[in-house]
């Protein structure tokens, strides 16, 4: 018990353990995940805007996860899991705010101002 506690204290002082390889993997992935969406849009790779939008949104989500794991060192263990819990709670609120606003306002525009759409 006391050994466990001491280990925790040590961990707290140092912050999370970061490694050179971890940062480099994260950086390389980020470069690819940034370059591909820019290429898709600037090079007009797909004729359909819908496909391009879906693709770049997908790349953005993957890149956010990469940054969370390799740069922000998110896992289920740090701070006894409270970091991840706060992140998941925020993600839920984020989804409700974004999806809810877009959904409600889209239908408001469609139904309330038929002449302007």
């Amino acid at each position, binding site marked *: 018990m006391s050994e466990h506690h001491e280990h925790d204290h040590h961990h707290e002082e140092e912050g999370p353990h970061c*490694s050179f390889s971890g940062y480099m993997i994260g950086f390389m992935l980020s*470069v690819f995940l*940034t370059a591909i969406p820019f290429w898709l*849009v600037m090079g007009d790779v797909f004729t359909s805007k819908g496909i*391009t*939008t879906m693709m770049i949104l997908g790349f953005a989500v993957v890149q956010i996860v990469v*940054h969370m794991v390799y740069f922000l060192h998110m896992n289920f263990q740090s701070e006894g899991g409270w970091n991840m819990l706060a992140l998941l709670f925020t993600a839920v*609120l*984020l989804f409700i705010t*974004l999806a809810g606003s877009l959904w409600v306002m889209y239908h408001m525009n469609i139904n309330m101002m038929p002449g302007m759409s």
Partner: protein
Amino acid sequence: MSHSTTLPAGENGQFEFMEMGEHHAPNGTLLGFWLYLMSDCLVFAALFATYGVLSQSFAGGPTGADLFDLPLVALNTSFLLLSSITYGFAMLQMQQNRLRGTQIWLFITGILGACFIGVELYEFYHMIHVGAGPQTSAFLSSFFGLVGTHGLHVSVGIIWLVTLLLQLNKHGLTTANKRRVYCLSMFWHFLDVVWIGVFTFVYLMGSMA
């Protein structure tokens, strides 16, 4: 006598609570700072939602496709991405207790951040100059609101970084300073995460419309 019978006592006469064995962080600063970042995330969620709702309200003014200069945005994105990895190098130097290396990589990070802000200010100046200021349309108001708030965060991050460099110069790699460097690293990487949303949702999707 009644005192000892009404309160539950443990084996060695001390009071025991149900949470006795649970882990408590000896220092809650990192967790607290993470909670601050999550609340900051909600500020950006509101700004993103506002932009999403108003992104087609051009009011006869210029659209994103007319205004956005993607090569410039790509340059800005690479500045911010590079600054993330240089901050990572500063963290690695700090882990090895190398003060000079930490300071040098932090300084490079600050320069890259300043380049990012410089390019963004140039972009804003250019847009306002051609008559696409925040008062032109709801689209531009929400654009300047969202991107400006992110830029303001990066600027505050740079001020914090300069302050931290002075602190490191004066006190060295003390426990408190290490904690500050770690908090700023979370702040810096968090702003990079927000920027992923900005360049995807605002610039790339705006250029297609």
